[in-house]
């Protein structure tokens, strides 16, 4: 009953790989977007904000279908990427990572944005009077002080990415060994008569991964908060 099969391991490792890659690629972009939303006023800011939050409110299958139209083999961007750079997303694990990255992006950006907004701008002014150029102020003051929010955003994004189902299965399907994550493996197992035990094992594993991520973020956040109060 507790023996994990090779096929299940493949799904677990693939899920972790997809979620890790999605989170790591989305984080720098998320920090840049969060900073823009927190610190800059620009034309069309509320529209940009709405577009970023769109995956949160759209049915996941809609996002997946839009990805298929855009990044599929014959999609506008997908065809160009395949022809010029040899990058293919359709029916590949990279496509799953792209879908997960987009679906988790709003959850990743929000805590980072809030924590950047909470950074005392008077400290940034002090840094500039000490000779720090704006980008160095960001690296040496803003980002370190916003670190708890960055970690919280990464954990939330990772948790969302590892559980993503609708957009992923629509965009890259459910191919064992290539695009079959824990979620789609559980879905497949619920469709077969004797799949309950295997499905339950995968359910248990997703709970363990999610708990581990939450505990890790809690530990990081506590440590970071202590640092930020100068203790």
């Amino acid at each position, binding site marked *: 009953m507790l023996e994990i099969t090779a096929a299940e391991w493949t799904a677990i490792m693939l899920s972790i790989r997809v979620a890790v890659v999605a989170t790591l690629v989305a984080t720098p972009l998320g920090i840049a977007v969060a900073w823009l939303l927190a610190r800059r006023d620009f034309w069309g800011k509320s529209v940009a904000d709405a577009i970023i939050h769109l995956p949160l409110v759209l049915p996941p299958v809609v996002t997946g279908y839009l990805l298929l139209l855009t990044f599929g083999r014959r999609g506008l961007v997908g065809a160009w990427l395949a022809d010029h750079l040899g990058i293919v997303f359709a029916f590949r694990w990279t496509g799953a990572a792209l879908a997960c990255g987009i679906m988790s992006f709003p959850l990743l950006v929000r805590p980072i944005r809030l924590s950047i907004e909470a950074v005392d701008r008077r400290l940034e002014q002090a840094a500039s*009077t000490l000779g720090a150029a704006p980008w160095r102020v960001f690296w040496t003051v803003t980002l370190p002080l916003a670190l708890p929010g960055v970690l919280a955003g990464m954990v939330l994004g990772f948790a969302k990415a590892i559980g993503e189902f609708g957009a992923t299965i629509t965009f890259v399907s459910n191919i064992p060994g290539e695009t079959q994550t824990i979620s789609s493996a559980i879905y497949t197992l619920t469709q077969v008569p004797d799949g309950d035990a295997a499905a339950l094992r995968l359910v248990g594993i997703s709970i363990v991964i999610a708990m581990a991520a939450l505990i890790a973020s809690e530990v990081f956040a506590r440590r970071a908060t202590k640092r930020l109060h*100068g203790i």
Partner: protein
Amino acid sequence: MLRIETQKQLGDFSLDVAFTSEGRVTGLFGSSGAGKTSLVNIIAGLLKPDRGVIAVDGEVLDDTSLGLHTAPHRRRIGYVFQDARLFPHLNVTQNLDYGRRMNGLSYDPAGHSHVVDLLDIGNLLDRRTGQLSGGERQRIALGRALLAQPRLLLLDEPLGALDADRKAEILPYLVRLRDETGVPMVYVTHDPHELRQLATQVVVLERGRVVRFGNPEILADTTAARIEMQPSEARH
């Protein structure tokens, strides 16, 4: 030398100030709301003047007629704020070292220990900023600004957040700073006592205008006028 000719509208408040100071320590004196902090922020480059010229040692940092505005980090003007503004994620040594790193200056052990001795902060170097008293924080802020090797040091009510005992503790350090470092200072306060000890020239601001300019003795008149109005205080 500091040359200031500046106008700035901030809501209902208008700042319109012109003076040239050759002093080692230029005192900016006035009650709260007189425009002292706005003026200092303009000198630091944190606030852009609507019109005017700011020049330090002959170098023009702002000239609105030419569209010139030098960014704060390129001015080499140190700033000590009333609330210290130490970086909470760095310890004392890292705070002190910040300006040197940002300006790409090489480490100068003699200069470093001179500042550390001058401010008597050698025993605080390993502390986190949360473990410092108000007076200690201000001394670290002074050291941090000095170690960035500024050509002008702005001090905006650096004793404003401290009680009388702590003020008396810090004031001698400021006097030593004036006498032992060659850095000219602009010292903002509403306390005539501090300026009489420190300033070589005084600018009195009221509602955004310069109402008096001269050596620290002009403050005696101000105080005398106040005492005349409040005879009970004169007896103390």
